[in-house]
């Protein structure tokens, strides 16, 4: 009952004109960045994070800026489907599996049905996941209140281990990416001993540390943009869509056939979204796979089955809310976008983690309330302005790209008033572009940069407490199982490798 009252209070705050306006603006920006091929929620959130300082200076708190950024995240999940269906190019990686059936539907003259199904499934996924979030979050936060330093470090180890064990990227490159993120987070003065660390060539710009925003905007504002310009070189043709009111109503009626895919996506997406290495993209792909596997008409998948759109779209929305769960309750982000949101919370003076629910209910509940509001706004804006988004998709990248570059440079300067940061950000962006070509995953590095300043003190405090005995991570009742699971996840690729070798050897034997 307390939860319900808190939620209602939160919704009322989220409905205040300022917060409602920011949610609408955030959703529109999110829909746009989600729809534009090459841009995703993380790009939008990272580039616009410095601009939220203005919102904070007007409102005085962290709630409104966070509502704005969370609305971008929401909108982007809706927007990805628009380009997947009409252009055949996913607006974001989270909408890759929407292309499988969305594009065939568009090519067969049913683009309006695909677009409406995507919007309604996203809404259903968002609503179901919001309800689950509201139910689980306070419970998880109260359990997490008993966590000490070893438990928090073990959880962070598990977050990184999930990338290694389940991330699906090249293992040494993933570990390298995690470690370089953690090392870069140590640049500056050691908060325990006060000693300077890794201040290269005695450049004073490094003494304040490498700021998260510099790396996030460098990677997502510059590196990813260069990557997009390099890969999207051949252009694409847009399918014509008739979005008359009658067609929209027909499409809404058609959505009744997508119930199964929507439910699969909504529940599966939420739980996959909670896992740090997983998030919305694998959530959507898994939901598509499960919807296809459990369908009586498997052969129609890939040819324009409406469940093939509903499942991934419900899943990517549901996963985006799921990814917020560990961020808000444990202080561990479940995706690169939530990593940026977490960094934003730290910049705004909040301490993410279980204490957030106890100490900052005025922040937490309006934010949760805004998830519900943003979800409603997103479906309405999406359905009402489909023609506008289709028009915007025709905008050449040569107009959008320079504006994004300008916003990245100006935003980085405005955050800390330091030209060194701007130069470093451009260099980081160019380096990220090269590493991306060679399949070095950047998401683990971004997560590591955020978690590094939290993980290191926890490890050092734990070892100080145990007189340097690492068994502290194995002998405590909560930290022990988490550490063991983390180690299993780290060793999972090795187990798979040995198993494959064994099977191959057995198969080769006459």
């Amino acid at each position: 009952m307390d939860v319900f009252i808190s939620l209602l209070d939160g919704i009322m705050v989220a409905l205040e004109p300022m917060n409602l306006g920011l949610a609408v603006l955030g959703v529109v920006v999110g829909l746009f960045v989600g729809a534009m091929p090459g841009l995703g929620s993380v790009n939008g959130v990272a580039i616009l994070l410095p601009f939220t300082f203005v919102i904070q200076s007007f409102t005085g708190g962290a709630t409104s800026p966070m509502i704005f950024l969370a609305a971008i995240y929401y909108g982007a999940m809706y927007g990805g489907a628009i380009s997947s269906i009409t252009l055949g190019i996913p607006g974001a990686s989270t909408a890759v599996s929407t292309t499988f059936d969305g594009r065939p539907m568009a090519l067969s003259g049913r683009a309006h049905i695909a677009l409406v199904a995507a919007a309604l499934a996203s809404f259903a996924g968002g609503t179901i996941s919001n309800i689950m979030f509201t139910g689980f979050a306070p419970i998880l936060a109260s359990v997490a209140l008993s966590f000490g330093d070893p438990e928090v470090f073990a959880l962070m180890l598990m977050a990184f281990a999930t990338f290694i064990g389940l991330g699906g990227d090249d293992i040494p490159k993933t570990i390298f990416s995690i470690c370089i993120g953690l090392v870069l987070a140590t640049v500056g003065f050691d908060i325990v001993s006060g000693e300077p660390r890794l201040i290269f060539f005695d450049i004073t710009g490094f003494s304040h540390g490498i700021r998260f925003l510099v790396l996030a905007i460098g990677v997502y504002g510059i590196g990813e943009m260069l990557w997009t310009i390099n890969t999207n070189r051949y252009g694409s043709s847009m399918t014509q869509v008739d979005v008359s009111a009658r067609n929209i109503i027909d499409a809404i009626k058609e959505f009744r056939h997508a119930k199964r895919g929507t439910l699969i996506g909504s529940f599966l997406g939420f739980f996959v979204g909670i896992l740090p290495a997983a998030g919305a993209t694998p959530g959507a792909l898994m939901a598509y796979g499960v919807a296809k596997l459990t369908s009586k008409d498997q052969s129609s998948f890939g040819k324009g089955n409406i469940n093939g759109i509903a499942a991934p779209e419900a899943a990517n929305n549901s996963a985006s809310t799921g990814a917020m769960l560990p961020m808000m309750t444990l202080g561990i982000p479940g995706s690169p976008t939530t990593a940026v949101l977490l960094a934003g919370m730290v910049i705004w003076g909040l301490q993410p983690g279980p204490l957030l629910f106890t100490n900052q209910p005025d922040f937490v509940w309006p934010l949760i309330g805004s998830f519900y509001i943003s979800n409603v706004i997103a479906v309405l804006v999406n359905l009402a302005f489909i023609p506008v988004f289709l028009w915007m998709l025709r905008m050449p990248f040569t107009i959008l790209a320079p504006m994004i570059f300008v916003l990245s440079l100006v935003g980085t300067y405005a955050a800390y008033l330091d030209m060194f940061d701007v130069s470093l950000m451009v260099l980081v962006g160019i380096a990220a572009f090269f590493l991306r070509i060679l399949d070095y995953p950047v998401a683990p590095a971004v997560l590591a940069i955020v978690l590094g300043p939290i993980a290191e003190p926890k490890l050092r405090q734990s070892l100080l407490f145990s007189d340097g005995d690492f068994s502290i991570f194995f002998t405590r009742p909560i930290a022990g199982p988490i550490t063991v699971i983390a180690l299993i996840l780290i060793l999972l690729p090795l187990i798979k490798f040995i198993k494959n070798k064994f099977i191959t050897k057995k198969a080769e034997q006459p």
Partner: protein
Amino acid sequence: MRKAELVTAIILGILSLCLMWKSGEAPAWDPSIARFDNIGLIEGEGPGSGFWPFWLSFIMFICCIWIGINWYRRTSPPSQSEEVFLDGYGQRMLFVVGGGLIGFLIVIYILGFYGAIPLFIIYYMRYLGRHSWKLSGTIAVGMTVFCFFFFDIAMRIVLPKGYLEPLFIPLYDIFL
């Protein structure tokens, strides 16, 4: 791509070794502490200041060797790929866009943001995008005016103006 995979692994391996070396650096104010004294556990203090970055850099170095082994065994996709690392389009793109960004950065130091923003947008839209002068000029001016009013006037965040600083004094007199 195959050659680039190895070269990158070697560069990152050297970077890892540099980071290990740098992590073991003792603070300048205490000459009694030797290099690498801080990478282990210190009696009564727990792990030293170099413990975390040193061992992480060590893991990075091991990963680079691992990437090298995968390259030799041709088990990673880039090590199997016969494609070029950056083809003609990619090289040209990096030169004109990446170079343009670095140029943008240099011009900021000379003419400030408000001189560099319109120049960069016109360079990008007119030279790379082949858009009309009218559209390029409108967006260049619009973006500069938006940034000025948003940052300098509304947020009171004064962006660097380089040699154009005197031109803005009358504007400050009007709007601030």
